[in-house]
């Protein structure tokens, strides 16, 4: 599966990046291709390219707050979750998505 995603938390300094790390580690260990953009207080980092988004099977938005640039994912399958889910159960989440999509 090709996964792209966005992580953003309230204070924008810790959970954002923990969620990103967890998702990437879980995704890679399950053999998926994964790219996560962070929208912290410092601004957007590791921004998703149009090509990444185009190629992705699913978009995971792990955010406690409003994320910017949501219109980029128009027409894509989007999964909205709080950062907590990505931090506590990243593998479970990815497996569930895979199951639901039947990929």
């Amino acid at each position: 599966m090709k996964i792209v995603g966005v992580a953003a938390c309230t204070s924008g300094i810790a959970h954002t990046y923990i969620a990103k790390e967890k998702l990437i580690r879980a995704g890679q260990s399950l053999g998926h291709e994964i790219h996560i953009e962070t929208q912290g207080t410092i601004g957007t980092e590791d921004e998703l390219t149009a090509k990444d988004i185009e190629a992705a099977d699913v978009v995971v938005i792990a955010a406690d707050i409003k994320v910017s640039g949501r219109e980029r994912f128009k027409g894509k399958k989007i999964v909205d979750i709080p950062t907590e889910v990505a931090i506590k159960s990243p593998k479970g989440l990815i497996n569930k998505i895979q199951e639901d999509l039947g990929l």
Partner: protein
Amino acid sequence: MLKKLQLKKHALTGISFMLPLVVASGLLIAIGNLAGGNPAVIKDYKSSYTIWQAAVSLGVFGMGLLPAVMGAAIAYSIADRPGIAPGLLMGMIANAIGAGFLGGMLGGYLSGYFVNFLKKNLKVHKWAQGLMPMMIIPLISSCVIGLLMFFVIGRPIAAVSMALTVFLQTMNSGSKVIFGAIMGAMAAFDFGGPVNKVASLFADGLLMQKIYGPEAIKICASMIPPFGVTLSWLIKKSRYSKSEADNIKIAFPMGICMITEGVIPIAAVDPIRVIFSCSFGAAIGGILIMLLNVGSPVPSGGMFIVPAMTNPIGFLIALGVGSVVTAFLLVVLKKDAKEEVVEEEEEELDLSSIKIN
């Protein structure tokens, strides 16, 4: 219905926009007061003023902007860019009539939902469509919600704000103990998760009413878990495995900066004992903060902002005692760690409600 409104997400977006402003303003006031000996806010810009007066005045500007930024960010979160203008204005009204943080939040929600309502239901002719986001929506929403704020809901909220302020300022020591314990335990309970955020929201809101105690509790309770865990490791190393020890070495410097999250890997292995020890220590810390009248005009920054607090020594006492209590409980309650290579553990979460859209 309530779930669809996503009230919490919008409030958290508001807080995320507000935090940098409140930290900058709070620190400016604190630095100005410390260095300049409580200088007066500049009233007459035509006569001369000192650099410290300038710093304090700038900070006061920032604090006055908080309800406006909160309102604008909530409205933006709900309705995108068209929400910003009415949201800002509602926050200014809230600030002016003394409805403060609560008023700013409510104004933001009302503006946001009303703008969304207009977007959906107000149909204009094609030639006027360009005017919708530029003129029609901002004007109508500011006007309608503004009048509502001025004449209907503003005063009652101002009264509630005032009552809460008075209640917190005049608490007797019995209620102070209970309040401090609950705030402290909540702030430490889930290491920066949703329960912590509720306590945090409450403390940030009171900051705008110039009540600084809860903010100090929040800071103290965020630092007690990493400090307490580190201390317990120093006392009895056998309680932790090698990988946990590595995590503790990261958690401690994070704790100095008031980031509690470093403790999560430790708590994940042994949640009940670790969470109980941390919350209990933080509750003790919270009680001491209230009894010693510690306050913090700045909502985050850890050890670096301790000098800016009222009664910094009291803060260090509360932090120290709370950390020692947590460490003691951990040493007593925890069992020796078994050395084993564990696959990174995952919590069982109910994922069935997650939908793919």
